[in-house]
């Protein structure tokens, strides 16, 4: 063997020996994740390529599941619903997160309490939030009664009881409302970090040069907040694609992709189709995220000109 190769081999072995303890501590956790990662990837791909009948595997490998999906109206509807869900709820979360972050960023007495209150939606189990919304908007619930003018202090906006849960737009709207309510604290935290990294003297300098609050917001806050805003948009949109609980409870008749997976797996006992949808969902997330990153970069370049 070449001398240098032998040296390399020796140093590699030495490195292993020297760091044996560290390797020993790393292996269990790493293997655990690796094992499940492989299980997930292999199984889901294998499952998606297998057709099931009555819960038993029938033929494999086959792309029949995917073919069936392309012909499925249900799938196409679920896809468009999921897409709408993502592109509506994500910017909304950004706005609510920004407003709450700006409120919490100002210093005033009791700021800590307000901050804790704003974090509450995150603390409550999602299933609880969902059930509350269900109660509020179901037949005879507060909101439906409110809109009908059943409470003397509020005017009637509609003349018949709106059934939120049996109307596709309304039910989806409800899901979006719930998701935004629940996830705003996360956006708030990310944007708050960005806000706090802006030096106060920037605002003071602008103030002495004649910029009022609106101008300061437009020319200093927003441009310097772009990295945080990008983080929020990318991270939260990924989460939106993965959403399951809100639509599952509030709009079960109008499934989005995640809900559709449950239907096939648990109710119809067809893991193959479920896995196929899962694979498509993962691919969609990757494509969308890449696209969003590209888009944000373009916007960033544009703003720098200003």
């Amino acid at each position, binding site marked *: 063997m070449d001398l240098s190769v032998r040296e390399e081999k020796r140093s590699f072995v030495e490195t292993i020996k020297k760091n044996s303890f560290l390797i020993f501590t790393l292996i269990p956790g790493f293997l655990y994740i690796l094992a499940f990662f492989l299980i997930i990837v292999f199984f889901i791909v294998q499952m998606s390529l297998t057709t099931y009948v009555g819960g038993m595997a029938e033929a494999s490998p086959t792309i029949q599941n995917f073919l069936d999906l392309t012909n499925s109206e249900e799938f196409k509807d679920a896809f468009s619903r999921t897409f709408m869900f993502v592109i509506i709820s994500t910017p909304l979360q950004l706005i609510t997160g920004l407003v709450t972050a700006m409120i919490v960023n100002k210093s005033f007495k009791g700021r800590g309490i307000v901050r804790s209150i704003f974090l509450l939606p995150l603390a409550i189990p999602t299933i609880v939030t969902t059930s509350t919304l269900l109660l509020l908007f179901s037949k005879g619930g507060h909101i439906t009664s409110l809109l009908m003018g059943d409470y003397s202090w509020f005017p009637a906006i509609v003349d018949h009881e709106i059934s939120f849960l049996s109307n596709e737009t309304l039910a989806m709207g409800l899901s979006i409302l719930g998701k935004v309510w629940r996830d705003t604290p996360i956006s708030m935290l990310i944007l708050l970090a960005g806000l706090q990294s802006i030096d106060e003297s920037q605002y*003071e*300098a602008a*103030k*002495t*040069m004649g*910029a009022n609050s609106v*101008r300061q917001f437009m020319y200093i806050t927003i441009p310097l907040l772009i990295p945080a805003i990008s983080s929020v948009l990318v991270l939260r949109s990924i989460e939106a694609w993965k959403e399951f609980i809100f639509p599952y409870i509030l709009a079960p008749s109008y499934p989005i992709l995640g809900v559709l997976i449950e239907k096939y797996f648990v109710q119809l006992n067809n893991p193959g189709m479920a896995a196929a949808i899962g694979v498509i969902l993962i691919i969609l997330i990757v494509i969308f995220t890449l696209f969003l990153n590209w888009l944000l970069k373009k916007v960033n370049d544009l703003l720098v000109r200003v």
Partner: protein
Amino acid sequence: MAGLRLEHIQKKYPNGFEAVKDLSIDIKDGEFVSLVGPSGCGKSTTLRMIAGLEDISGGKLLIGDKLANNVASKDRGIAMVFQSYALFPHMSVAANIGFGLKINKVDKKIRNDKIEWALDLLDLNGLGDRKPSELSGGQRQRVALGRALVLDPEVLLLDEPLSNLDAKLRVKMRTELKRIHKQLKSTIIYVTHDQAEAMTLSDRIAIMKNGDLMQIGSPTEIYTRPANRFVAGFIGSPPMNFLEGELAHENGNNVFINKDVKYVLPASMKSYIETNISQKEVVLGMRPEDLAISLTPATNGIEGVSIITETLGSDDFVAVEVGKKLFSVRTEPGSNFPTDKKVYLTPAEDKLHLFNNDNATDDAKVRFA
């Protein structure tokens, strides 16, 4: 450009702390005035009150004869350069400089002309499209300056603008600032803790301590006739040598006495002492360059022991132990004054300084120029 007047300006915080106690300064149009003092003396607070970034607790602020206490920053006719420069990192140099003009809806052509003018004045030609992160410290400092100058302010406020630069750059920028002041004839208020900076740049220096004005006057005045011990010790490097002792009378002469020293004060000081010295405890001050050092005993001098010699190239400084104090005495460069010897110091009689010694607080005697 216009003048500026502070009348009994006071800054008091809700917890009772008084950052500025009672400040009255009259600044003429085109004057360069420095506010100098140690950390916490209130100089930055004063500047921020002038800028409108802090509320004025009491007193009147007049900018160009108009009462400005409740006027918004942008309407006061001031422009400020911050210690951290506060450049907008996402904007180019040109955009930074032109920001104030853009906000005030100045015509684009005029705006660009002004930006060009600023870039040229501050030696920033060709850097207009760069971002602040691509500039050196000195360049950034000049952009901050340019940003303020294009607004044609009545008063230009500078908050320790050179403190983030290295020593060599600082000296260079000092000259730049002086040149710009001369060229534009602007009214400038300059805050710094560096007394050398204040000395070289200012028409007048206002020295502050603990929210009080200690003295205001031209650099020469402050240097040669400090009003109190604090000012005397603050201005000048190496600092003035002090001896604490008592004022006594002997044979019709005023004599300075302490444990280690007995020095007869010159007759020329008699009238000064009569007017200004009100107690027995006094402080005698002598600058290093006003002391002559010799190995031969002097009839009326200060005894001490030479410890070490510091060679600065242009001067030599001998450290002399007088009692428990360490004096600094200037000598000819290369004189190689012998150490560990008994020496005799003779101060120049017209360059002596004598102050009341109030131990608790320094004498807040203020001299107006």
